[in-house]
């Protein structure tokens, strides 16, 4: 028992994808699991929250926190994990940058409630639930505004290989060193650095499978995105949407950089480009709105409103 590394795995508001990606190391589970002394993992073992609360501070070697802190309970669990774990890993892009759940910050929380509970195609006059459910925070603040992390492991989800590498490194007590390249570095497509005459939507035409998608006019976030995924989408025909967040230093503004690159490739008339890029906020900041400059201004605005 003594050689084992104690771990706790916790989820905030998330999709489970990061933990699924961990399970997807498949037979290597047989290598990793015996090294672990699982202290908390609601997904696969019958622990209750009291178990976690009862452990002494800093008594767990490694903690993983998946998801965003959407509810008061998520926030509580996030802080609890920080107290109990020596090394706390921000696991996945939701946890690192707010991720997809962070897009809720585009709207006021009341507008969110309207669509979800009060009125839509199948709901009329519903009320926001209040019994035995934790209150929803008015705005999603990125997890690193609540606690400090020791390691960021971004990706939506992080790949199974990346997770395996990170876990085995950290279990050994070694420092995790990750290559800093962007997705373009791993992309097999040919780049000629030619300006693009026209911006296309992803379903337009049929892309040349061998040439850079951005150069063909399809907006690709590869150059603004950390390549820890090794370019899995771009090498299968799909544009990158930036799900691994910005490359190191990873709190730089990914959306701003994506726009920077697009502007370099497409020096088009302002009206033309504004017309073609229909949803810049939802495209360039899809995974990192909560930690971006625009996102942080929004958070301050919502907080001011709720004071």
């Amino acid at each position, binding site marked *: 028992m003594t050689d084992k590394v104690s771990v706790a795995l916790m989820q905030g508001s998330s999709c489970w994808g990061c933990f699924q990606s961990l399970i997807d190391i498949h037979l290597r589970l047989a290598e990793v699991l015996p090294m672990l002394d699982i202290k908390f993992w609601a997904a696969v073992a019958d622990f209750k929250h009291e178990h976690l609360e009862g452990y002494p501070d800093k008594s767990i070697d490694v903690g993983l926190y998946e998801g965003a802190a959407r509810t008061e309970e998520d926030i509580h669990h996030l802080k609890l994990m920080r107290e109990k774990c020596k090394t706390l890993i921000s696991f996945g892009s939701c946890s690192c940058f707010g991720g997809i759940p962070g897009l809720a910050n585009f709207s006021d929380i009341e507008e969110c409630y309207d669509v979800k509970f009060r009125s839509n195609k199948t709901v009329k006059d519903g009320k926001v639930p209040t019994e035995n459910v934790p209150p929803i925070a008015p705005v999603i603040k990125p997890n690193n505004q609540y606690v400090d992390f020791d390691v960021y492991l971004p990706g939506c989800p992080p790949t199974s290989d990346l997770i395996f590498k990170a876990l085995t490194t950290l279990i050994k007590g070694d420092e995790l060193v990750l290559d800093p390249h962007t997705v373009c570095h791993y992309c097999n497509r040919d780049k000629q650095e030619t300006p693009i005459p026209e911006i296309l939507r992803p379903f337009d035409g049929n892309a040349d499978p061998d040439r850079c998608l951005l150069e063909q006019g399809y907006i690709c976030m590869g150059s603004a995105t950390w390549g820890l995924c090794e370019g899995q989408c771009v090498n299968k025909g799909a544009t990158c949407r930036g799900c691994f967040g910005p490359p190191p230093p990873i709190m730089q503004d990914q*959306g*701003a*950089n994506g726009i920077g690159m697009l*502007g370099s490739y497409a020096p088009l008339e*302002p*009206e033309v480009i504004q017309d073609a890029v229909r949803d810049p906020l939802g495209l*360039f900041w899809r995974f990192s709105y909560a930690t971006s400059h625009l996102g942080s*201004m*929004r958070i301050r605005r919502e907080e*001011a409103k709720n004071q």
Partner: protein
Amino acid sequence: MTMAKTQTDSEHEWTPRIVAYCCNWCSYAGADLAGTSRIQYPPNARIVRVNCTGRISPEFILAALDMGADGVLVSGCHPGDCHYTSGNLKLRARWAIMEKAIEQAGIDTRRIRLQWASASEGQVFADGVAKLVEQVKELGPIQEEWK
């Protein structure tokens, strides 16, 4: 908004803080000219010199707003006159997309301004600064956006 503005004004004289990114080859020289020719323009702009507007990432503008600038100005060579051929056209395209994003994020786009001013256009530069300052004064401090 108007009320909040008057309050701030009466408490301690608020003046807009503007960050101005100027291209070394034209607008920075233009700003210089405006100074030496004693052209009057509001003293609110803190000028940051860049080698070409093509060097400007949208992050420069967004970070400035996030850090408390009330307005941001970018001033570069006229289209066709960029010393690196097309740096300003690249910036112009970035600007157009960024402007739309700022609007989507619910921040008033009158806080940002893109203009072209050559080295000899000290007056154009000065007028641009004055115009932005005026716009921003109407909007109040950036903190107003959080209310």
